[in-house]
């Protein structure tokens, strides 16, 4: 299979997954959950019967289920996600377009930190295999893996903010600074494009703790996999050849070994991306970061059904899209994948 066919296959599969997410959301919200009018309008449905009737007509709620399903998909594809009761009936799509960029910022930094910490510690524990350094690293990733992200976030908050006063307790930037104008939609990139370095610096300071919390929870899997793949690679024939050529152990380890040992990490990337995007929901709430996770919890508390369903679908799109990207990356790095 060549790479184009492979990407096409993965792409079709991704669309399949998205369709099934939408179908599940539809089934649960329209047939099982009882009254969809209530779930779209909330309490307003009971207070204004004529509004409810207008909604029923507008969303074809009196038609058979398959017709409803058709219009549901049409609405979704047009970005019509309803209005959000928990945010003064602003369109859900608008709230999401304002909050999603912040979620992407945290996710980006968290993925970077997870990879950097995970790879550094993985290499170190393979290098010092079966020493106290190796055991210490194992204990560290066990502790990180066992702790839920919201717990790690709270501990970081207690240590770095309340005890040492080093980092801000929450928010995405210093509220005294003027946010950049909308260019790409992602505040950090926009501030760099504008040359607003003060804002950029403040945004970086605010993103450290939430993304560090996620990195602490998830670096373990990278470390663990890299350690074992590194130990395996170091027994390979080409490494023995390199040793026979008289290269020093450091060069062999870092230049020849690490390069091959990193390949399995790429196969983990879709798993890590899913965990981290799910994890942003928790850390955004701990650090009052104005992303989609904060919105979804508001929506959950306020029984804002359009808000929950809208964010659910956007989370699914983000996760499926980044898994697709990870699959493609893996196929580029490791040609064997394309055969399967």
């Amino acid at each position, binding site marked *: 299979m060549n790479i184009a066919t492979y990407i096409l296959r993965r792409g079709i599969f991704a669309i399949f997954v998205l369709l099934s997410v939408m179908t*599940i959301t539809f089934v649960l919200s329209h047939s099982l*959950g009882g009254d969809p009018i209530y779930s779209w309008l909330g309490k307003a449905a009971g207070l204004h019967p004529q509004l409810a009737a207008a909604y029923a007509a507008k969303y074809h709620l009196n038609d058979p289920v398959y017709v409803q399903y058709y219009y549901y998909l049409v609405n979704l594809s047009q970005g019509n996600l309803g209005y959000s009761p928990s945010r003064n009936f602003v369109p859900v799509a608008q709230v999401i377009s304002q909050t999603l960029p912040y979620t992407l910022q945290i996710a980006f930094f968290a993925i970077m930190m997870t990879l950097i910490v995970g790879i550094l510690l993985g290499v170190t524990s393979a290098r010092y295999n079966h020493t106290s350094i190796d055991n210490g690293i194992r204990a560290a990733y066990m502790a990180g893996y*066992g702790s839920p992200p*919201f717990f790690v976030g709270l501990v970081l908050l207690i240590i770095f903010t309340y005890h040492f006063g080093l980092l801000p307790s929450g928010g995405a930037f210093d509220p005294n600074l003027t946010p950049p104008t909308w260019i790409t939609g992602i505040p950090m990139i926009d501030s760099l494009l504008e040359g607003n370095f003060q804002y950029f610096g403040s945004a970086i300071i605010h993103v450290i703790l939430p993304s560090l919390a996620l990195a602490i929870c998830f670096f373990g899997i990278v470390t663990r996999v890299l350690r074992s793949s590194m130990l395996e690679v170091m027994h390979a024939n080409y490494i023995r050849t390199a040793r026979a050529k008289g290269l020093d152990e450091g060069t062999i380890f870092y230049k020849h070994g690490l390069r091959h040992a990193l390949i399995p990490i790429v196969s983990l990337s879709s798993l890590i991306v899913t965990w981290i995007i799910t994890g942003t929901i928790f850390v955004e709430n701990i650090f009052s970061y104005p992303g989609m996770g904060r919105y979804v919890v508001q929506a*959950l508390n306020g029984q804002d059904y359009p808000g929950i369903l809208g964010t659910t679908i956007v989370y699914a799109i983000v*996760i499926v899209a980044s898994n697709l990207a990870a699959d493609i990356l893996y196929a580029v790095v490791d040609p064997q994948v394309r055969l399967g």
Partner: protein
Amino acid sequence: MKQNAQGTSDPTPFDRVLTMFKKTPESIVGFFVVVLFILTGIIVTIFDLLGIRVTPYNPIQQNVGVALSGPSWDHLFGCDFLGRDVFSRVIASVPNDVAVSFSVVFVAIIVGALLGSLAGFKGGLLDELLMRFTDVIFSLPVLVIAMVIAVALGPGLTHMMIAMIVIWWPPYARMARGESLRVAHQNFIEAAKFAGQRTLGILFKHVLPNISITMLVYATLDVGTVILVYAGLSYLGLSVRPPLPDLGEMISNSQDYLITAPWLPIIPGIVIAVIVIGFSVLGDGIRDALEAR
């Protein structure tokens, strides 16, 4: 004691556990954490049904006089913002985690083993269809499904259990398929086929017992993951309703008291971490012990 092909006797399960403890001493800790966790869950549930309270205080009894008081001999883990005893609340929430983790993993094993072994054993179109279906379910993010279910059915312990059960089985199905492909062409299966046994009979008698060990090791590690994910759902307020206690819920309702009472979120957090690490250390130990054979 059974004799194996080499004429030496097979080690009993007890011997195996001893070997594991010797090889990986940390699995002793894991073993005791797991036993304590399960026992607490069972004892609290049984006594709860009998109407006898095993916790030192009533976990939902408010006592404003001792609100936010620190750990002491009277209140081992201190009291929360309503003066409820945190130790009692932690103990009372263990049954939730035992129930969720074991039922989710149990159903996942059953569903996964049946679908996976059927796919691997039958092959062809059925295999292809079942495995693509597995792929799709595997790609659904658990939190997303849980939130949608919370919208449709409302929050609650059983609803979250359902949400996790719906999507937890795919790794087990893949494992079962791989293993059953491996055993499907071995002589004893061929013999059973020639003897005219029906597919389901062969599956239950010969294929499933052969894949159970791999799945059990994975399941031990997996229980920890279920507990972590469930804690997250509970933290988001999707599980038990107040005033009932739950580990995740205890963290979320005490996070406004980080300065005045930092132990309130820290203690349930550590309890979650200890349980999860216990299962994963034990799972690692079992796997290492099996690999050494």
